[in-house]
C-alpha cells in the first residue's frame, strides 16, 4: 500500500527539478552539435581533398587506364568505381573538391575584402559616396545573378581563376550590403563617437573600431555565401563555362555523367552527394555560428 504512494512522492518531487535542468542543458547540447557536426564534416572533407592525396598514393584523377573502364561502386582499389574513361571516381571527387573549396574560398575572400570595404566606406562616409557606391552595386544585384555570372565566365573563357572572378561579381555586392548595414549600426554607437571625439582619424576608426565589431556578421555571411558559391560553381561547370575537362570538378563530373544517368546513375549521384553535403554543412555551420555569436 505504502509503496506506490512513496513512488508518487519521489517522482513528483524529482520531476520539476529535472524539468528545470533538462531543456536548458539539452538546448546547449544541441547548440554545440549545430556547430560541431558540420564543422567536423567540413574538416574531414578538407583533409581528404587537400592532405590525403599528398600522404596516400591515391590514383591520378586523369589519364586512367582503358582496362579499368566503368567499374562499379566498391570495386577493389576504386571504392567509388571508375568512370567511362577509366579514371578513379574517388580520386576525381577529391581533386574536384579542391576546386570547389578553392573557388569558394577565393570568391568569399574577394567578396569579403572588396565588398566589405565598399560597404564600410559607404556607411561611414554617407551622403554622396554612399548613394553612388550603393547604386552601382544595385545594378549588379538587379541583374539575374546566374545570367551575369554566365556572361562574365563566357567572355573570360573557362578556367578556375575566371570562375572565381565571375562569381565574385555576385559576392561583392552581397558583402557590400551586409557590411554597410553592420557599419551603419555601429557608426553611431557611443564608442565610435567617442573615438571621433578623441580626434581619431577616419581610417583608424573604420579599421580599429568598426571592422572588428563587424567581423562576426561578415564571417557568418561568408559561410552561407560559400555554400551558394559551391553550388553556383557546380552549375557553371555543368553548363560548360566552368572548369574544363579533363580537370576534375564536381560540376563537370555531374555534367559528363548526365548522359548516362538512366544506365549508371552513380556518375551523377556520387558527386551530387558530395556537393550537397558540403553545401548543407556550410549552411548549418553558418547558421550555428550566427546563433552562437548572436548575429542577426
Amino acid at each position, binding site marked *: 500500500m505504502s509503496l506506490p504512494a512513496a513512488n508518487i512522492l519521489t517522482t513528483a518531487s524529482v520531476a520539476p527539478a529535472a524539468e528545470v535542468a533538462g531543456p536548458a542543458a539539452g538546448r546547449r547540447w544541441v547548440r554545440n552539435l549545430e556547430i560541431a557536426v558540420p564543422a567536423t564534416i567540413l574538416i574531414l572533407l578538407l583533409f581528404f581533398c587537400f592532405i590525403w592525396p599528398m600522404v596516400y598514393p591515391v590514383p591520378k584523377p586523369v589519364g586512367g587506364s582503358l582496362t579499368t573502364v566503368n567499374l562499379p561502386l566498391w570495386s577493389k582499389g576504386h571504392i567509388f568505381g571508375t568512370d567511362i574513361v577509366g579514371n578513379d571516381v574517388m580520386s576525381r571527387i577529391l581533386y574536384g573538391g579542391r576546386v570547389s573549396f578553392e573557388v569558394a574560398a577565393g570568391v568569399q575572400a574577394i567578396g569579403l575584402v572588396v565588398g566589405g570595404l565598399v560597404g564600410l566606406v559607404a556607411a561611414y562616409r554617407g551622403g554622396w559616396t554612399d548613394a553612388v557606391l550603393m547604386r552601382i552595386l544595385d545594378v549588379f544585384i538587379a541583374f539575374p545573378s546566374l545570367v551575369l555570372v554566365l556572361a562574365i565566365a563566357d567572355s573570360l573563357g573557362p578556367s578556375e581563376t575566371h570562375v572565381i572572378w565571375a562569381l565574385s561579381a555576385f559576392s561583392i555586392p552581397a558583402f557590400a550590403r551586409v557590411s554597410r548595414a553592420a557599419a551603419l549600426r555601429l557608426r553611431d554607437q557611443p564608442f565610435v563617437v*567617442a573615438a571621433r571625439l*578623441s580626434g581619431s582619424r577616419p581610417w583608424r576608426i573604420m579599421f*580599429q573600431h568598426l571592422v572588428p565589431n563587424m567581423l562576426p556578421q561578415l564571417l557568418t555571411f561568408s559561410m552561407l555565401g560559400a555554400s551558394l558559391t559551391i553550388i553556383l560553381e557546380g552549375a557553371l561547370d555543368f553548363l560548360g563555362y566552368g572548369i574544363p575537362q579533363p580537370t576534375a570538378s564536381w560540376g563537370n563530373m555531374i555534367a559528363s555523367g548526365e548522359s548516362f544517368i538512366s544506365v549508371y546513375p552513380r556518375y551523377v549521384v556520387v558527386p551530387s552527394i558530395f556537393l550537397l553535403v558540403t553545401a548543407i554543412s556550410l549552411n548549418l555551420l553558418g547558421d550555428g555560428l550566427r546563433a552562437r555569436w548572436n548575429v542577426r
Partner: protein
Amino acid sequence: MDAPATAAVPDGQSAMHLAPAPLLEVSGLQVTFHARDTSIYAVQGISYTVEPGQTLAIIGESGSGKTVSAQAIMGLLPGSASVAGSVRFRGEELVGLSQRDMRGHRGRSFAMVFQYPERSLNPTMRVGSQITEAIRTHEQLGKKEAHDRAVELLKMVRLPAPERRFYEYPHQLSGGMRQRVVIAIALACGPQVLFADEATTALDVTTQAQIMDLLLDLQQQTGTALVMISHDLGLAATYAEDVMVMYAGKIVERAPAKELFAGVRMPYTQALLDAIPRIELEPHVLLPVVGGRPPDLASIPPGCPFAPRCPGVQDDCRQDAPPLKQYEAGRWWACWHPLGKGAQ
C-alpha cells in the same frame, strides 16, 4: 591658439592667464534638423559662457536640446542638422570648421563622457589600447610611454589594479569601472572643457555619487571646466556651481546653484523642483507632475514655450516669448511674471 596641452594634468592656472576671452563662449547657437518635409528647431539661439574650472549643469527634460547643443559645439551632428550662431573656444570660431580642423580640438580642447558606459567602449579592444589610442592621436609617444601614461590615468580615475586592468576587455569590468575608463579616455589629452552627458544616469546611486565625486576631484586637479548635462536637478544642486535650465530648445533660467534653489524665478524650474520626491512629504501623496507635453519643435507657437503648461500663465505670455535677461547679478531668467517677484 595652440594651448600647450602638457601632460594628463594640464596647467589650468596658466591657461586662465592666457585667455582674456572666456574659455568657451556660445552665442546665439541654433540647431535645426531638416527632415523630408519638416524642420525641427532643436536648439533656438542659446548663449552661455564657460570659464576655466567652472562647473555648469545643463538641466532639462528629454528633447529640450541639452545634448544636441553639446554635440553641436563639438561638431558631432550629422549632415541633416544645420548649425547657426557662434561657438568660440578661446576666441576661435568653431562653427563651420572642417572635420579635419575640428580633429585638432577634439580630445584636447574638449572631451565628453557618455551616458551608456556599456556602449562607450569598444568591446573588441583592450581597455588600455583604447586609452593609448586617445593619447597617441595628439602626441607623438612611444608604446612604452603611452602605456605608462594610460596606467597613470587609470590610477587617477581610481580604478583598482590599473596595471592588470590595462590588459582587460570592457566586458570584464563593471558599469562603474567602465565609466571610470571612459573618463580616463576623456581626460587622456587634458581637455579644457569636459562634457558629462548624463554620465551617471545609467549607474546605481552609490556608484553615481562615487563617479560624481571623482569628476569633481579630477576637475580640481586638472582645472578643467565641467559641463554636466542631466535631467536630475538634485544632482545639479549637489555638484554644480551654476545651473542652466533648458526647455524646448531655449535656456529659461540660469543662476548659481545655491541661489537658484533658494528662490526660483521661472515657473518651469519650480515645476521640476516640485516633481522631486521629498522625505518631508506625507506618505502616499501624489507628486505634483508637470502637466501636458513640451511643444512640438517642428511648429512652435508664438509666446512663451512654457505658457500652455504654466500655472501662472497670463495673456501676455501667449503674445511674445520672454527674452532671457540678466535681472540680478549672476541670475538670468526668461519669464514675464517671475515667481517671488510679483509680491514686491
